[in-house]
């Protein structure tokens, strides 16, 4: 099924807005979404399935007397269905309660320019092409280490389009592509099973390296064998990309959201201009990052995305805002309204949360550590205390570093501490930045993390 045309989607959104105003809304906004995804899946060492998922829909927000109502439908091509959805959104607004802080939808601004977010080649990928990609990945995995079993994974290609219209005259359309492949592995040897090791590559342009993913997933699992327990003590910890993403997602990335700050849920409340991290740490939320996984011309309420400096050499510079939270403080939105498709109202999320990398190679970073851990992934980050930043997680897979070299895999080690203390204890950043979900970051070295072993 071919993608809907730009004019078609925008005019559907505009139709919904007009229809809502005609039926008594003070204000209205419509967000249309289309996702066309082809995937092939690997299960237990072989490619076993393929799918084609077409997901389209429209979410409508209406405001009556400062009360917000929302309704969505996945029936797009039928104007009656859209009108019924408008009526539902109006009914919901009338049932809801006025919000004195509501100050309207965003006004019209010119959208940002973005680069490398759409690739026609990805739209044209067939399931057979993706089978080829997945096979390359599997073969590379098998070639690297015979003790490694590819548990699951796959390859996928998506076309994503979004359109926005609101009663302030905002109207826009943007489209993008994502291609990705991933592999989860375990290694088995003489009765020992390693924890799951995972590698992936996701890009907006058709430039992925399935062979690297397969080989690297195998290398990790193979070297996770012969794991030993470690002593309980505080030590240096290198957080590799996934581990860093997992720990920051449930703590720092929430703490910089303006609504968390306004609602007394953030340990960073009132700390603008203060030192909140080591001075080697600079973080931008970069909604315009070239080829970024969260790069779009406009956010999910039609505000142009932008680059916002969050932490500059350790000093907290800005929180992240959507239109509502910004207006509450008399500020402008930083373009951080996010929605997962058409099913929900916007909420504040980071776009590409970019930790500026350092100059050291990963080998140099490890080479300077007398005793420490390198952690690729953590288990249980979602059980962190989002308000205080306290975490208590299992490091898995992880390796012990001795005298500047990786000595052996580690099992059952827990890391406990507070993310805001950890940020102040970052003493080095590697030069190996990569994209993991919203995070764009290198490996970081954190001093003095409590490791609970035996």
């Amino acid at each position, binding site marked *: 099924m071919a993608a809907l045309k730009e004019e078609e989607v925008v005019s559907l959104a505009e139709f919904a807005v007009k229809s809502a105003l005609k039926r008594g809304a003070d204000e209205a906004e419509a967000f249309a979404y289309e996702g066309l995804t082809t995937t092939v899946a690997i299960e237990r060492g*072989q490619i076993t399935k393929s*799918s*084609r998922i077409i997901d389209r829909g429209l979410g409508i927000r209406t405001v009556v007397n400062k009360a917000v109502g*929302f309704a969505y439908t*996945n029936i797009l091509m039928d104007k009656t269905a859209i009108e019924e959805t408008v009526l539902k959104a109006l009914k919901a607004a009338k049932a809801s309660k006025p919000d004195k802080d509501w100050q309207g939808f965003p006004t019209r601004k010119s959208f940002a320019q973005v680069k490398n977010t759409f690739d026609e080649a990805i739209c044209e990928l067939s399931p*057979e092409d993706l089978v080829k990609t997945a096979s390359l990945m599997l073969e590379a995995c098998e070639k690297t280490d015979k003790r490694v079993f590819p548990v699951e994974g796959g390859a996928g290609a998506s076309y994503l389009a979004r359109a926005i219209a609101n009663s302030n005259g905002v109207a826009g359309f943007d489209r993008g592509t994502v291609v990705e492949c991933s592999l989860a592995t375990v290694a088995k040897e003489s009765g020992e099973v390693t924890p799951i090791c995972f590698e992936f590559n996701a890009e907006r342009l058709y430039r992925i390296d399935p062979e690297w993913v397969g080989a690297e997933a195998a290398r990790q699992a193979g070297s996770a064998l012969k794991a030993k327990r470690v002593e309980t003590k505080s030590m240096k910890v290198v957080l590799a990309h996934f581990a860093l993403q997992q720990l920051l997602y449930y703590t720092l990335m929430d703490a910089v959201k303006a*609504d968390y700050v306004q609602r007394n849920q953030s340990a960073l409340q009132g700390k603008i201009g203060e030192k909140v991290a080591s001075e080697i740490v600079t973080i931008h939320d970069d909604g315009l990052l070239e080829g970024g996984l969260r790069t779009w011309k406009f956010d999910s309420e039609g505000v142009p995305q932008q680059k916002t400096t969050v932490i500059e050499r350790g000093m907290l510079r800005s929180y992240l805002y959507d239109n509502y939270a910004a207006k509450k403080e008399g500020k402008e939105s930083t373009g951080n309204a996010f929605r997962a498709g058409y099913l929900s109202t916007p909420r504040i999320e980071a776009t590409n949360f970019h930790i500026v990398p350092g100059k050291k190679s990963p080998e140099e970073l490890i080479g300077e550590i007398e005793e420490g851990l390198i952690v690729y992934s953590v288990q*249980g980050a979602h059980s962190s205390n989002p308000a205080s930043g*306290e975490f208590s997680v299992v490091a898995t897979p992880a390796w012990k570093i001795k005298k500047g070299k990786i000595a052996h895999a580690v099992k059952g080690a*827990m890391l406990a501490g507070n993310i805001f203390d950890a940020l102040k204890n970052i003493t080095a950043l590697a030069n190996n930045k990569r994209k993991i979900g919203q995070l764009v970051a290198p490996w970081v070295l954190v001093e003095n993390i409590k490791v609970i072993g035996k």
Partner: protein
Amino acid sequence: MLKDTLSRIIEWAVQKFGAEYVEARAQKLHKTMLTVKEEKVEAAKEGIENGVALRVLINGAWGFASVGSFDAGGLEEAVSHACKMAKAAGLKLKNPIKLAEGKAIEDRVRVKPKKNPSEISVENKIKTMLTISKNVLEYDESVKSCTIDYLDLVGVNYFMNSEGTYIEQDKLYVWSRVLATAKKGDVYTFSREEVGSTAGYEVFDVETPEVVGERVAKRAVDQLKAKPPKGGSFPVVLGPNVVGVFVHEAFGHLAEADLTLSGSVLMDKLGKKVASEVVTIYDDGTIEGAFGSFKYDDEGVPAQKTLLVKDGVVVGLMHNKETAKKFDTQSTGNARAEDFRVEPIIRMRNTFMAPRDYSFEELIEDIKFGYYFKSFRGGQANLDGTFQVGIQEGYEIVKGEIGEPVRNASISGNTLETLHKVDAVGKDFELWPGRCGKGQTAFVCDGGPHIRVLEVIVGGSA
């Protein structure tokens, strides 16, 4: 007629594409959602989700397609997509997939709620949520925020497959999650509760706004006085809520037959002892009104009560049709799909440890120093059996008595080693609703009695 259309496209996939197995799942669902933040309603939300999922097995490989429409043309296109997908997927297949055969079933399953959420006004639902919020915020001045999400989902699922099964099944879920934070000086605390039912809106007659509000707020406030736990190995007593998440995360996932086959530590353990003899574990889809219950799963197989561990021995796994064939057994009715956009995979239902004979006092009286962990905040397990469960409410046990509260603890260990160290199981029992993520979200319950574990690793920063 939807039934005729589904029947025709299934027939077409078999005739034209040579499909060995075809299933169509259609849904017509209506959702109401609310988000309340403090005394404000962020938005009242209504949604319709109509669509069809088509899954075919051709030459031992799966093809899947999903569309948000019921018209015959769209469905024909989707089923031919699914068949082409299956053929592409089979290009490099070494071991073709086979399915355990099912009986042909025809049924119409109706729910009979005392209070049907679709007959309750949005105004009324808003009032209930705002009352919870008020109870949370007014509990103590240290309570700073309260976020409530509410969801109800009502509608019908239609299932048809090429084995002659046709089921129309009413769907009804009511769910709410309440989050509160408290702050005093530099100390921030956080507390969470969920309410969930497949019975009806009457769940709020038991889990009243007052009861739920106080439970969430009290915990957040009490934790302000709590200290961080010591890190290290300790004896612990786990409450039903923590036992539930432990049984679900640490053991249950390993016993989902797809993950067992992927190399979970249970792979070679069927019929063997993996736990102390006081441990018996079930996954039960038949508990009336429980959040993880249903009559038929998303492969048209009746849900059942599945015994997983009996007196310490693994006696069963959770199956769909595909893994059942591999183990030469029958599906246990654990195939579930979140919605029409995704394919069914093996999921838990209501998972619990069976109670035995200890009182709470007997469980704690012999512990010189340890911890009582009453309520969890998240948990996760790995195929090698490493688990982690975060704790949102915990206390020290000192000389056989409950002592001071501790905050932000978590426990970890190896599942099988830990199950062997369960030395006493209580006589009480509670089941708690929750949501489980495995790529898709499933509504479940977890639970059990209080239990004592001789040793687990407690992750603490003190």
